[in-house]
Structures are given as structure tokens and as C-alpha cells.
């Protein structure tokens, strides 16, 4: 890769401000006691010291996307015809996503397989995706709830990023990884720093050395599938869950949505909003039948989808990047790591039993 530059910590805010002219810049900023990705404004500052509370996914999948606007008109003389006019609303403009963590950036590739795949290309998603440049900050270490290493990632993983920042003492070494990243770095006034590449690599290696040896959740998709019919297990697993949406809305990989028409008088819009599989309404059918009536069914789906169904469909990639947000933000501290580890064990034990039969 051709471009490496050194970003002094204090030069970042002015740079983002300047980029604001060309891009919609999204960066982690403080909001109350939390840190959220939102449009960068100098007075909001930028918070790079800890993992943001909300993931970066809203850059590609906003919590609420207008699919089109509409208006109806009626003629006021017989035969009273109603006509409807639609106005499509495709997202426009370039997006710069600054300060994502490796887990968040990796998650974007999980969306790609679904929204920008061979069979289906979602126009809204692809418009945003193509217009987005992702600048990722390698993590200096894992927090207690992090487990990227167990799902195929790492604190310094560059998958899904256009530029990777490695923290050094007074700033960051920025290395462009893609065309888009090179374009972004080329036009900056930052110091060329090809000489610092080795140092950045050393730093990343040191960070990697700190990652503990732990069992991996990869390649468990078949194993987990065998637990599908064991509702007793899922009942036990989900007993403390409140069926809220905190875990899925804060998950960087959850991508399910709802579509509704929101009329106001004679006009309105059709919107696509985040939905979550932990809510009982998610699968509620028009007839009143609900194929996932209990929280056990729903927990099975959440874990099953991330660790079994998705990887089976998409070359063994897990739909979990190990950011740990669902653990640290759950009102009852539900720990998905324990749940998956338990499920794997349980499935293995079941298999053994059957072997003896």
C-alpha cells in the first residue's frame, strides 16, 4: 500500500471539520453519559478513548430510512378520482465514517452479503455503501466484554476498513487499504510517514500478544443447529431476558427492519426502520399466530442466526463481531458468550448421549 501518514491527535478535529464540506462526517461523540456516532461538529468534540455505545451501522443502515414520499389528491367533482404521486428518495452524498473500531468495520461486510449480494442489491444500502469511506481505529486493548478474537476478528483487524489508524504516542499512523482510503489520504496535509509503518506494525503485534487464548466460536454452526429442537435449553438460557431491543439495536451486525407507511393527512412517507427479533411482534402474523411465541424461541433465533444460520449461508462467517455491546448494555447483563459456550457444550453432550444409544 502506498500511502501512510501521521495524524497528530490535535489535528484531527480541524481535519474532520474541513472534510465536512465534502462529506457527511460521522464520528463517535459524547451524548449525555454515552458515546454515539453522529454528525461531527467541532463543538461536540470526538471521543476515541472508549468503544461507542451505539455502533457505526447507522451510516449504512439508518434507524429510519425514507424509501419514498407520497401524496394523494382527490378530484372534488364526480367521479371523485384519487390519484397518487410518488417521489423516490435515494440517499445522496459522500459519507466519511471516522473512528469505527475493527469490530464495527468488520460488521459492514456482514451487511454486504445481505444487502449488496449477488441476488439482491438494495438500492438504498448500496448507494450509502458506495459513498462511504471507513476510517478505523485499531483498539489498544480489549475491554472486559470484548471477544472479537473468538469470532474471527482481532483488536487490530482491518477487514472492512478503507484506512486503518494505529495509535502511537502523540497521534496515529494512518495506512490506506483501499482505493477510497488512498484517495482520502492523498489529499491531506498530513506528514508522509512510510517510515513509521514498521513501528505501527510492532504496536499492533504487541496488542495482539495481549489477546488471551480462548475457545473460538467459529465452525459451530452444525453443532448449534442440533440444539434447535431442544426448547428446554433455550427456556433456561432466556429465563432472565426481558425481550427488549437493547441488544439488537446496539449490535453492529443486526440488520433486520420493518417497513411502515406513515401518513399525515393526504401525504406521507414509507419508511424502513430497525426492527428486532427479541420482540414478540417481530414474527406476529396477521392472523394472530406467532411462530416465535416465547422469549426462548426468540433467543434461539438471535443466537442461532448469528452463530449458525448466517455462517451456513455465507461461507462460515459469523454474524457476530464480538464487540460486547449486547452484554454491557443489557438491563439484566445477559452474556451471549456464556450462552454460546453453554450451547456448544450442551450440543456436544447431546451428541455423546446419542452416540451411546
Amino acid at each position, binding site marked *: 500500500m502506498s500511502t501512510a501518514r501521521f495524524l497528530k491527535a490535535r489535528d484531527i478535529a480541524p481535519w474532520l471539520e474541513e472534510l465536512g464540506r465534502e462529506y457527511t462526517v460521522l464520528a463517535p461523540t459524547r451524548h449525555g453519559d454515552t458515546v454515539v456516532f453522529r454528525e461531527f461538529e467541532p463543538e461536540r468534540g470526538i471521543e476515541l478513548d*472508549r468503544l461507542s455505545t451505539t455502533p457505526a451501522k447507522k451510516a449504512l443502515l439508518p434507524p*429510519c430510512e425514507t424509501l419514498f414520499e407520497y401524496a394523494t389528491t382527490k378530484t372534488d367533482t364526480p367521479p371523485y378520482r384519487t390519484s397518487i404521486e410518488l417521489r423516490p428518495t435515494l440517499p445522496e452524498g459522500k459519507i466519511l465514517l471516522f473512528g469505527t473500531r475493527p469490530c464495527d468495520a468488520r460488521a459492514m461486510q456482514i451487511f454486504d452479503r445481505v444487502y449488496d449480494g449477488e441476488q439482491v442489491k438494495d438500492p438504498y444500502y448500496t448507494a450509502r455503501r458506495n459513498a462511504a469511506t471507513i476510517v478505523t481505529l485499531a483498539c489498544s486493548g480489549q*475491554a472486559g466484554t470484548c471477544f472479537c478474537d473468538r469470532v474471527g476478528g482481532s483488536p487490530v483487524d482491518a477487514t472492512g476498513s478503507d484506512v486503518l489508524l494505529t495509535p502511537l504516542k502523540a497521534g496515529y499512523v494512518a495506512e490506506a487499504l483501499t482505493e477510497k482510503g488512498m484517495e482520502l489520504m492523498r489529499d491531506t496535509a498530513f506528514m508522509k510517514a512510510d517510515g513509521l509503518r514498521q513501528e505501527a506494525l510492532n504496536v499492533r503485534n504487541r496488542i495482539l500478544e495481549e489477546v488471551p487464548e480462548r475457545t473460538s466460536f467459529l465452525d459451530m454452526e452444525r453443532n448449534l443447529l442440533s440444539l434447535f429442537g431442544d426448547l428446554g435449553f433455550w427456556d433456561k438460557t432466556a429465563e432472565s431476558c426481558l425481550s427488549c431491543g437493547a441488544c439488537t439495536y446496539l449490535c453492529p451486525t443486526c440488520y433486520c427492519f420493518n417497513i411502515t407507511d406513515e401518513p399525515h393527512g393526504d401525504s406521507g412517507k414509507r419508511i424502513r426502520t430497525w426492527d428486532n427479533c427479541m420482540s414478540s411482534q417481530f414474527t406476529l402474523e396477521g392472523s394472530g399466530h406467532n411462530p416465535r411465541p416465547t422469549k426462548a424461541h426468540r433467543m434461539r433465533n438471535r443466537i442461532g442466526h448469528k452463530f449458525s444460520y448466517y455462517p451456513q449461508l455465507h461461507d462460515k462467517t459469523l454474524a457476530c463481531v464480538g464487540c460486547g455491546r449486547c*452484554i454491557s448494555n443489557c438491563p439484566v447483563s445477559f452474556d451471549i458468550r456464556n450462552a454460546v459456550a453453554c450451547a456448544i457444550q450442551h450440543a456436544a453432550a447431546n451428541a455423546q448421549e446419542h452416540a451411546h444409544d
Partner: protein
Amino acid sequence: MAHTQELRTLIARELPNLDLVLAWTGGFDPLSSTPLFITTEADLDRLAVGPMHVQNLAAYLPSLKGRKVGIVTRGCDSRTITELLQENLINRDEVVIFGIGCTGAVNIRKVRTAVNGAPVTDVEIGDDVLTVTTGEETHALRLQDVLMDKCYTCAGQAPRMHDHMVSERSGCLATGETPPSSLDLLEGMDARERFAFWEGHMDRCIRCYACRNACPLCVCKDSCVAQSRDPHWVDQSDTPREKLMFQAIHALHTAGRCTECGECERACPMGIPILAMKQALNRRIKHLFDYEAGMDQESTPPLFMFRQQEETIKERDAR
């Protein structure tokens, strides 16, 4: 801890007669806790009680109706149980209450904010100081400053009713001056500032409804009007207006019932001070009807009744 041991013994003795017992255990770090569903004696080893075990376990009771359930209960949680009984949402003979005297509950969010969100490696509770270690650093926080709002207005550390009681504990962490609450902050503002306050906070609401699902009195969760399309109370667009509308719904649906247990605010992953609305309503209800929820099983919640002459309500004119 002697009290924990005593509690274990009490539960172990009752366990054969019960389907399960609700208690707490530690969570993913020393500051977090998670509900423990005890069904076997082996589960008892994991039981833990203390100021950092914060969930209001009574929230699970309505969904467990029909089963015989034991529950570890502090003073404030017992108010929830009373309210649920008042509303016939649970049956007293299906619930076995293991009472414990409470010394106060820590507001975990305040602590995390005080240590700037750094990963917590160790926590120690002293007489009036909470010592939090984050890697190399240690932070000494005055417990008085980091309790849940409800602790400053506590109506009694021991549960109002019990079937078994762990011997009385003495002491209370809430001593001295009460730190200002969000409601106090709102009091100091004029209407426009308050409106702006909510606009700012609701901006980061992710509409997860953890506030609702953690609330022990929101019993219609699965058919909540917030997600109904017809009637169309709330639309799905991601605006402060719609999100604040839901908070108004929650506050009014719990008016005269809310015991100020604080679960809604505690559960909110975005740290939105939604308890303030309920506190304001409760204060008004106390003033108008001299009523506090969850104190007396025989009384009728104030919005379920009326008086022909309301002494405290005065007629106003339109001018």
C-alpha cells in the same frame, strides 16, 4: 458474608416446595449483576446479595403467575409486589418472600460515568466509600453520591411483608445530603429549556423499549400501544417527538401505580433520565391525593377512583 449464608439456608429449606426462586448473582464485571433463577441447591452457590445487585426481581412475577415462586426482596421491591397484588396481577399464595434488609443500591451508571467508562477490574464497598479499580487507577467514590434515586426517598429498608426474613441489618448508605436529581435540574428550567432538554435527550433514544420491558408495571408489553398500528399512537419515524410521545405514554400508564423503583431509567442503555417524569407525577399525586403506590394492599390506586368533592382540586377559569 453471614447474611448471604443465612439467605442460602432459608432458601434451601423452602426450595423443595417451590418451582424456582428469584435472586441475584454477579455479572460480566465486578460492577454488574444478573438475575439468578434458582431451581436446585447447586444454584445457591452463585447467589449474591449486596448494593450492586440492582434488578427489581418483582418484574418477573406477573409472567410467572401460576407457578410457585420464591423471591428475594428488599424494601423497595416489596412495594412493587404490593402494587401487583393490589391490581390482581399476581396471587399472594403463589409467592414466597425472602426478605432482606437493604442498605442501599448503587446507581451503576453514575459509577461508570465517574470512572469515565474505563473497564472496571475490581470494586470494594467500604462503610461509606466505593473503591473502584480500573486497571492501574483507583477511584474512591462517596457512596452517598452514587446511589439510585429511590434510595434517597426510601420508605423502609425491610420489605413491607415477608414469609422469611434474614436477620435485620443495620446501616444505610444514604446519609447526608441528597445529590440533585434530574427532576431538580428540570425544576430550575423554564418551559422552553425543559422542552429542549427532552429534545436533546430523546435524540439518542434507540427505541429499544428496555424502559418499558424492565418496568414491573408495564404488563401489556407484548401488546403495547407503542407498537400498535391501529390505533396509531406513535409513528415509527426516528424523531424526538415520537420517542417523547412514548415516554408520555409510559408515564401516564403508570401514573398512580409507579413505585419509583427506577428500573426504567436503570435499564435504559442510553442513560436517558426518564425517571424524572414519573417522579414529577408521583409528587403531584402525593400532593393531591395523599397517595403513594405500593404501600397498602387494601387501598385503591388514585386514578381507579374519585371523590365527588375533590378538596385539593380547584376550579380554574379560562382566562
